[in-house]
């Protein structure tokens, strides 16, 4: 068959299947991410059907998917929100980092994947899925709950931490050594701080530069700017995704709101292809050997996230049931764990079991997270003494 025809048919079939999977996910009320990953596993190397024609497209689209994921994450926050979040929740944020980075890093060392592997797996287990968490909070009607700001500010801290972590990871994966790594950390911190400062004072200029009343012009402006910034950041070894994240933060106000609306369909498409592309590169037969480790890691890091939430909510003066709700809302891992694992796998310096472990882990956590948030109240209720009913007046 003509290679173009083959690519189009494969791509069409994959996107169509993703549509079916997303519908299924919506029907049973779960995040579509694990289903996308499973789809990728089924189509990839060693899967049920092998797709060869769309590899190149899937690879580039996946990269664009990561850039859009991070751009939209940045659009959700203003620089001022990030600063207040950082000031108010840094203690909880640091506890979160320590408690949840160590299990992943420890397991990687135990399995003999070395320092780089530990760095990657730590990141995978550290970062909660802000997408899943925000959706769960909204769906369960917990927006007005008192523990919700606590959860959100931890997520904000994680996203900022990722802006520093990703450049360091990129440098480590590129094998720059200790001094090079230190330089990368310095550059990353300087760039992040500088962009935040600029965004805080002059964010409206950035917004004005990309803004347009015409939605077509606006879409092209935002997308073009994001790819340019991502490319420039990548050339400076700062990680493309972080460049996009920073651009997202600098765009603010109604421009950010409109950009979110206009980019959402694009993000959904490219991010879905990104998850599939990640699954495509993972051999399904490599998953069963690491499944046991993934389960242990899932249970351990679910517990550490719950602990983080309990501690943070307690600091904020939330009563017991709310502390458990806060902890459970943080359990889900998803898109950003895959972004981190994807970077590592693409660099080729980590063993391929890492991709399998990360896939299995995210499959478990993306399913377990929303379930934990939904059922935490009935599960913990027997252990919590409720106050006696107030006398009816």
């Amino acid at each position, binding site marked *: 068959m003509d290679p173009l025809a083959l690519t189009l048919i494969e791509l069409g079939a994959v996107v169509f299947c993703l549509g079916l999977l997303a519908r299924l996910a919506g029907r049973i009320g779960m995040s579509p991410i694990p289903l996308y990953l499973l789809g990728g596993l089924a189509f990839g190397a060693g899967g049920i059907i092998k797709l060869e024609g769309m590899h190149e497209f899937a690879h580039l689209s996946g990269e664009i998917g990561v850039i859009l994921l991070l751009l939209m994450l940045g659009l*959700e*926050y203003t620089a001022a*929100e*990030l600063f*207040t*979040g950082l000031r108010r929740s840094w203690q909880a944020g640091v506890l979160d980092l320590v408690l949840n980075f160590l299990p992943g890093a420890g397991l990687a060392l135990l399995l003999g994947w070395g320092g780089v592997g530990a760095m990657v797996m730590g990141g995978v287990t550290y970062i909660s899925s*802000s997408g899943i968490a*925000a959706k769960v*909070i*909204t769906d369960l*009607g*917990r*927006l*007005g*709950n*008192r*523990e*919700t*700001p606590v959860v*959100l*500010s931890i*997520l*904000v801290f994680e996203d900022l931490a990722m802006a520093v972590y990703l450049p360091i990871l990129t440098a480590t994966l590129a094998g720059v050594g200790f001094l090079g790594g230190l330089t990368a950390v310095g550059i990353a911190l300087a760039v992040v701080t500088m962009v935040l400062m600029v965004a805080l004072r002059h964010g409206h200029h950035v917004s004005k530069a990309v803004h347009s009343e015409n939605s077509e012009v606006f879409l092209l402006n935002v997308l073009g700017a994001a790819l340019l910034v991502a490319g420039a950041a990548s050339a400076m070894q700062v990680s493309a995704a972080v460049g996009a994240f920073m651009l997202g933060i600098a765009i603010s106000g109604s421009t950010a*709101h409109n950009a979110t609306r206009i980019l959402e369909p694009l993000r959904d498409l490219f991010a879905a292809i990104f998850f599939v592309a990640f699954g495509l590169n993972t051999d399904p037969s490599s998953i069963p050997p690491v499944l046991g480790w993934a389960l242990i890691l899932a249970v351990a890091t679910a517990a550490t996230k719950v602990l983080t939430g309990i501690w943070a909510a307690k600091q904020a003066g*939330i*009563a017991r*049931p*709310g502390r458990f*709700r806060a902890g459970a809302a943080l359990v889900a891992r998803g898109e950003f764990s895959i972004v981190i694992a994807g970077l590592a796998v693409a660099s080729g310096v980590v063993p391929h079991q890492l991709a399998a472990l990360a896939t299995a882990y995210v499959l478990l956590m993306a399913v377990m997270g929303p379930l934990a948030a939904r059922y935490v109240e009935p599960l913990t209720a027997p252990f919590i003494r*409720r*106050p006696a*009913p*107030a006398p009816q*007046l």
Partner: protein
Amino acid sequence: MNVDETNLPGLGRRKDFMTASGRRIGVVERREGQTELIVSTWDDPDTCQASIPLTSDEAATLGNLLGGTHLAMKLTEEHKDVPGIVTRQFSIASGSPFQNQPMGKACIRTRCGVSIVAIMREGEVLPSPGPDAVLHAGDLLVAVGTQEGLDSAAEILRHG
């Protein structure tokens, strides 16, 4: 009254306060523009028994109802030394004969000796409206007069 304002990064803003009965009540303003009314449960003020999405019309109407009751209660309190004077609220239904008409057309003061002391509209109070104030569907009129006068004013507003 102390209203707490809390930022919900990425999602919106919460404004709420604690009632004397120990319930937390307020609104969440979503970033996309929707408003949700939130009420906490009695045994755990951290959680919400209900969060009810409201359209802007519904929110305005609810604001009128609450504000109107408050105003009427205050007026009743002020008039309680004058026997026979009562405060009552009338709402202008859509389809009322005076919808989109100046209030003076109803001649309520002339016909029943009732004064319209305020119009509540979209959560705001228009005090001492003149005869040329135009009535809209959803408006809440706060009226002061005798029991009989108010009865006939209600009849006029409903049927013309």
